[in-house]
């Protein structure tokens, strides 16, 4: 169990080494250090997981206190870890997928001038995420929450000399702050109501039924926590930062989208299930926002040309599914999809990275094509990720999405319908991406033909035809492809094979997450319909884009511009909002607030200037003053004595 400390200590150690010696260790030693620490953290997580498996199902919640962090009056916030099935699930896939991404980055970032800084952030990112999930209180978790936000800022803006990257980093940070604001309000409410932040004192009594929560309190608390989750997990209305996060290096996108960061919101909602239980309306909000986001982002993904942007919108869409599952009351399904998504989305991003790498930083899918024969490993692995995301059986996505759709059906057929339509769109945009990148004719410029032999002089990958990435990059791809293909076996919906569900069961007792049975026949029907829709989308995408890359009718400007939501927001922000802000700044702040402060100062100065005149410097004036004063005192004393 003491291995639990190593889970956090190793990435922190790596962070420290790279912070102080990153420049000296350089390329590629920094990358190997970071990878070793991440892998070590993963191994430690596996050890803890194995020892938890030794416990009986009911006693799989273990506290590891370190010290009391904030002892103030009745408030005691401990610096401690809570090891339970939920936190361990997150720690396992975060550190596992995170390790693979770090390994991949060794090859991808080769030759970058800030090699050490990149891996410093990678390790710190992993550390923050692990703090977030392993913390034993909301407040300690918030530390990791903010750490993740900071690291995303540092990594999205990694190439900060590019203006667009700096702007995207700022956008991500500011948007996240709005969500963090909700989280903080939730913390205040929680302290007001429970006088504690610890999971054991806040959530455990609710889960065991020793305590109930009034509807209004539960709704307020749940909605504020969900606002935090919305910011971190890029849901409506705070999703805009995620597509722009593509400005960072591709492994960062994989890390943010798959293993860390965006799944934090899903974790927070799952963790807060006991609170959510007391507020059916908040559950409806979670499910509806999830479904709406899933559909909206999927439509936008259909009109994007940037290979990473398609994947970014698809992440938003898939996160919507996760919230749909959680809001529908099936936390297991949401978490199952999160884990599956970690596999295939990391795979897709890393595959996209390999493509971008091969084409010398080209990200426009319209300038790709025909890469199948040049990038065999990337193509095959990308195919696995593509089929998994498109929910084609028997790949990962099918099983987890099916579980979510069954829960949504139970909640409301309308939510289910949105989910199914989104599934079709998902299959469509992914097949479009796949054929645009790997199929059809080559639309990229053949550097080898253009430059001749000269291209090779610049180094290993600076010229020539697209070629497969080095093993350090393809090995993670292969591992993730295997995960995307057979990972669903961890929670197969057959008797006795639903390991993940049984593993998570102690965290979501029937009291707070009432289990519901969807009839087997209905399940089959749901699975069949969803698969039919997915295949429909798949066929549509393949047939539409197999021969040509130019179909303006299928890419209306409104989709390419993401429904103009970004433009509307920035127009509103730079127009009326900016005027309001400058009004407040110059009118209220400069006029009223500053006026008050300056007025007090001016009053003091003015009265001093007037009082100064009494000090003439002439001795007789002072003498006269003393005389008059003495006379006045004498007169006063005389009258008093006389009276």
């Amino acid at each position, binding site marked *: 169990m003491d291995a639990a400390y190593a889970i956090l200590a190793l990435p922190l150690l790596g962070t420290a080494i790279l912070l102080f010696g990153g420049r000296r260790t350089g390329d590629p030693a920094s990358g190997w250090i970071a990878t070793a620490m991440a892998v070590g953290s993963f191994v430690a997580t596996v050890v803890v997981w194995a020892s938890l498996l030794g416990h009986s199902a009911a006693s799989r919640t273990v506290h590891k206190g370190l010290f009391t962090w904030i002892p103030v009056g009745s408030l005691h916030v401990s610096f401690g870890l809570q090891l339970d099935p939920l936190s361990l699930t997150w720690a396992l896939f975060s550190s596992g997928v995170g390790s693979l991404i770090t390994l991949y980055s060794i090859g991808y970032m080769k030759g970058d001038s800030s090699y050490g800084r990149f891996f410093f952030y990678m390790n710190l990112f992993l550390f923050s995420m692990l703090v977030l999930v392993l913390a034993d209180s909301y407040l300690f978790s918030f530390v990791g929450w903010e750490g993740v936000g900071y690291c995303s800022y540092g990594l999205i803006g990694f190439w900060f000399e590019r203006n667009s990257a700096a702007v995207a980093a700022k956008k991500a940070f500011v948007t996240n702050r709005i969500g963090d604001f909700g989280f903080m309000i939730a913390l205040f409410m929680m302290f007001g109501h429970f006088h504690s932040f610890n999971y054991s004192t806040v959530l455990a009594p609710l889960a065991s039924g020793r305590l109930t929560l009034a509807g209004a309190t539960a709704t307020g608390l749940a909605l504020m926590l969900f606002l935090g989750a919305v910011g971190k997990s890029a849901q409506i209305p705070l999703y805009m930062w995620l597509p722009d996060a593509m400005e960072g290096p591709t492994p960062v996108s994989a890390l943010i989208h798959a293993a860390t960061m965006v799944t934090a919101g899903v974790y927070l909602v799952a963790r807060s299930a006991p609170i959510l239980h007391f507020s059916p309306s908040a559950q409806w909000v979670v499910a509806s926002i999830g479904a709406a986001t899933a559909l909206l982002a999927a439509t936008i993904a259909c009109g994007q040309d940037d290979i990473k942007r398609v994947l970014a919108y698809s992440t938003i869409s898939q996160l919507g599914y996760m919230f749909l599952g959680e809001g529908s009351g099936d936390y297991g399904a949401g978490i199952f999809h999160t884990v599956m998504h970690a596999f295939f989305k990391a795979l897709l991003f890393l595959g996209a990275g390999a493509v971008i790498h091969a084409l010398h930083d080209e990200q426009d899918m319209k300038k790709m094509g025909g890469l199948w024969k040049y990038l065999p490993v990337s193509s095959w692995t990308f195919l696995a990720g593509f089929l998994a995301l498109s929910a084609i059986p028997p790949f990962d996505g099918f099983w987890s999405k099916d579980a979510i759709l069954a829960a949504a059906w139970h909640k409301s057929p309308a939510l289910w319908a949105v989910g199914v339509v989104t599934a079709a769109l998902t299959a469509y945009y992914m097949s479009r991406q796949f054929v645009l990148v790997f199929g059809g004719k080559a639309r990229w410029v053949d550097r080898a033909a253009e430059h001749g032999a000269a291209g090779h002089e610049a180094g290993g990958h600076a010229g020539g035809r697209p070629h497969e990435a080095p093993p350090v990059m393809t090995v993670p791809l292969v591992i993730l492809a295997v995960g995307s293909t057979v990972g669903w076996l961890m929670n197969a919906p057959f008797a006795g094979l639903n390991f993940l569900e049984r593993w998570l069961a102690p965290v979501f007792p029937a009291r707070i997450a009432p289990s519901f049975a969807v009839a087997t026949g209905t399940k089959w029907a749901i699975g069949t319909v969803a698969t039919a829709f997915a295949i429909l989308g798949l066929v549509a995408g393949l047939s539409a884009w197999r021969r040509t890359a130019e179909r303006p009718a299928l890419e209306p400007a409104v989709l390419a511009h993401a429904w103009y939501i970004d433009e509307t927001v920035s127009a509103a922000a730079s127009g009326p909002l900016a005027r309001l802000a400058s009004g407040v700044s110059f009118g209220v702040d400069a006029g009223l607030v500053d006026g008050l402060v300056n007025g007090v100062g001016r009053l003091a100065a003015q009265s001093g200037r007037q009082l*100064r005149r009494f*000090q003439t*410097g*002439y001795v007789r004036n002072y*003498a*006269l003053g003393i*005389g008059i004063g003495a006379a006045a005192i004498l007169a006063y004393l005389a009258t008093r004595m006389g009276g």
Partner: protein
Amino acid sequence: MTVPGAWYLVLAAVLFGIGATGLLVRRNVLVMFMCIELMLNAVNLTFVTFARLLDDIGGQASVFFVLVVAAAEVVVGLAIIVAMFRRRAAATADEIHILKG
């Protein structure tokens, strides 16, 4: 014959008034200084008078304190005045007003 105590007090009041007036109206630092001495001694006279009228030795004792303070004051005051005269030929009290606000 004995002089009535009230006469002493009147004399002291007159002396004090002369001193105070002189201090206020004269410009010469030396004369102002002498006026202060006059006022101090007027006060001394009242002390002594009351000591005799009330048959209390405390008044006489106070006079000694006033004399000592006056002597010390003369030493410091004259030193300042001498220093002033060294810097400028004719020093009047109105010329030294650089401490005005």
